[in-house]
């Protein structure tokens, strides 16, 4: 590190292929480009432990993880990696199998890496948040368990990520960094407790300027003591609910919007996920969602070039083949606006 600060560059070489038996994922090979100068870190592989949903731990469990890591690794960690894994930084090729035996026997499996399903991740959800419209932790865990093979044995054209947030606050940034983003939402009227509204009004809150004026659809009004909402015009943005959590609650029918495609900028520019299914019920064991996920992955796996993410593939092929393959109808919720230019394709099926 001292050296990097002086010369302003890193000295890590590309990872070779290292891993544990029967797995293709979970370990990132890393070798120093200056092994003679720094023999202690000549091998410095990363070991990704799949975190428990919501990043909850007991001290007992964490200490156990630490003890093993001190024994077979550098003692350095990332709590957590950007994707969500509990990342152990720095071990040697020899120690990998030992680490795996120690951890897996205690219930800690490896996370994803390479051209595989990546470790799913979620916000804290119903464990501690009044706005969680879906059970994010259960969904995350169920998906992770369902796709164990796809997580551990890279067989896809590239990585695919899945993140789940309980509401439009999107505390796990699903819309920005998951190929498949699940965001909790509701149908039906926002539940208003006018007595609580009154209390907010009596407190120091300026309901008009803190809440009403920010409503993006102008569908709220406040007459000095109670709030009225034209729910048909509400776009469920969550602003009012977050600012008056005691007085306003989401509508009673709960579910999620499914969005697809986000990724970092390499190489066609960053993407945010696009709305594909405006509303889907999300009840354990989440079969409808898992089937959709499988269909999406299958279409992508069948059609993508190497290193092509699902969002990029949709851009190349167009939305229609994707929607047709997964059996979803075109809906205005999928777009901000319809196309501008009068050039568009017709299929034989449109002529009937």
């Amino acid at each position, binding site marked *: 590190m001292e050296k990097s600060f002086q010369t302003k560059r890193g000295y890590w070489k590309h990872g070779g292929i290292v891993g544990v038996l029967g797995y293709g994922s979970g370990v990132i090979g890393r070798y120093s480009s200056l092994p003679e100068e720094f023999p202690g870190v000549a091998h410095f592989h990363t070991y990704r432990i799949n975190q428990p949903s919501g990043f909850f731990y007991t001290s007992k469990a964490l200490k156990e993880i630490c003890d093993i890591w001190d024994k077979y690794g550098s003692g350095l960690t990332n709590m957590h990696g950007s994707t969500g894994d509990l990342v152990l930084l720095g071990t040697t090729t020899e120690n990998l199998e030992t680490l795996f035996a120690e951890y897996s026997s205690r219930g800690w499996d490896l996370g994803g890496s390479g051209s595989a399903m990546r470790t799913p991740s979620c916000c804290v959800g119903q464990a501690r948040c009044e706005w969680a419209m879906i059970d994010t932790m259960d969904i995350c865990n169920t998906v992770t368990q369902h796709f164990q093979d796809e997580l551990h044995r890279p067989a896809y054209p590239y990585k695919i990520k899945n993140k789940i947030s309980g509401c439009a606050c999107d505390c796990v940034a699903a819309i920005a960094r998951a190929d498949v983003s699940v965001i909790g939402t509701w149908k039906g009227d926002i539940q208003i407790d006018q007595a609580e509204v009154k209390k907010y009004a009596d407190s120091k809150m300026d309901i008009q300027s803190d809440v009403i004026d920010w409503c993006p659809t102008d569908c709220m009004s406040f007459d000095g003591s109670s709030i009225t909402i034209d729910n048909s015009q509400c*776009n469920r943005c969550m602003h009012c609910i977050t600012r008056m959590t005691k007085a306003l609650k989401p509508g009673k029918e709960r579910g999620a919007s499914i969005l697809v495609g986000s990724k970092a900028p390499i190489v066609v520019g960053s993407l945010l996920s696009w*709305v594909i299914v405006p509303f889907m019920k999300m009840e354990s064991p989440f079969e409808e969602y898992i089937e959709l996920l499988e269909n999406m992955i299958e279409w992508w796996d069948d059609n993508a070039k190497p290193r092509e993410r699902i969002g990029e593939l949709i851009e190349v092929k167009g939305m229609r083949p994707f929607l047709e393959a997964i059996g979803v109808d075109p809906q205005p919720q999928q777009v*901000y*606006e319809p196309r501008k230019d009068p*050039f*568009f394709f017709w299929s034989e099926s449109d002529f009937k």
Partner: protein
Amino acid sequence: MALPERQTDIGPPDYRQFLPPVIEKNYGKWTHHEILTPGTMVHYAESGDKLFTVRIASPRLLATDSIREFCNLAEEYCDGYLRFTTRNNVEFLVSDESKVDPLVAKLKADGHMVGGIGPRISNIIHTQGWVHCHSACTDASGLVKAIMDELHEYFTTKALPNKVRLAVACCVNMCGAVHVSDIAVVAVHRKVPVIDSENVRKACEIPTTIASCPTSAIRPNPKEKSVTINEEKCMYCGNCFTVCPPIDIHNPEQDGVAIVVGGKIGSLRTDPKFSKLAIPFFYNEPPRWPKVVDAIKNILETYKKGAKRHERVGEWIERIGWEEFFKQTGIDFTFQHIDDFTFMRDTLRTSAAFKY
């Protein structure tokens, strides 16, 4: 008889010679105006002078007899001064206030539509159509007539929340301003062009023809010394036809028109906007295109009901959201609405906030 001597590169005549004296005198010195009726307005100058304008609709496609008729009216009521607007209406420039009402009365008596000023529809911008363009896949004038017959009250009397600019383009070249109109009709093809290889060979430059295709759907066909088209890629834009007419894009059975909405040119309140696809297709049903006319009327009336004063069609739609536009108008949303051309990315919704 000998011809007069031709002159070149003289440019158009100087406009100053056509300005009525009241304009010459007050040029650049106008202070304000008032809209008196849907077809008349008055401009006030610093000097205190007033200029009255009386506007009538014109079909744009004018026989010289019609022009002479306008000229005679201008001579009778305003010393022969008249102009055309940028949307092809005729404006009589009257300096004598007492002539305004008689002129309006006369125009109405002669069957002219006096109007188009203020928050209403104006002339439908349109282009050549079957009348004069080889590229046309609908008729512009016929369509315009059918639409205007239904909506003329919004020109002559009824007010709308703001101006509503209508247009018709007879092919995707869009010689009018369809791409920035409140409500517009654009003719579209839906079938891959048919190649007459014999004539392609004779009439076309193969490389130029290949290069003309925006989706790279055209490939050489060396055997025929012609080209082939990859059906999957062709989006029927007709550009190949423009550079090589033996590639015939016309298919009378499957050609028709689309309706686009929400465009806007001025920068008032919100930025200029492109029109977007509302309805991807109607069959050509000359001479009255009833379904097209109904659809336009439906959109216009839904707008009239829902929009706030001053709000243009596109501003109204953006305020309520496109999902709400489709709901309120009852228009079907289809695969064609989803952009898959160059700028798809920016049209896809990347937000959890939308209306059902």
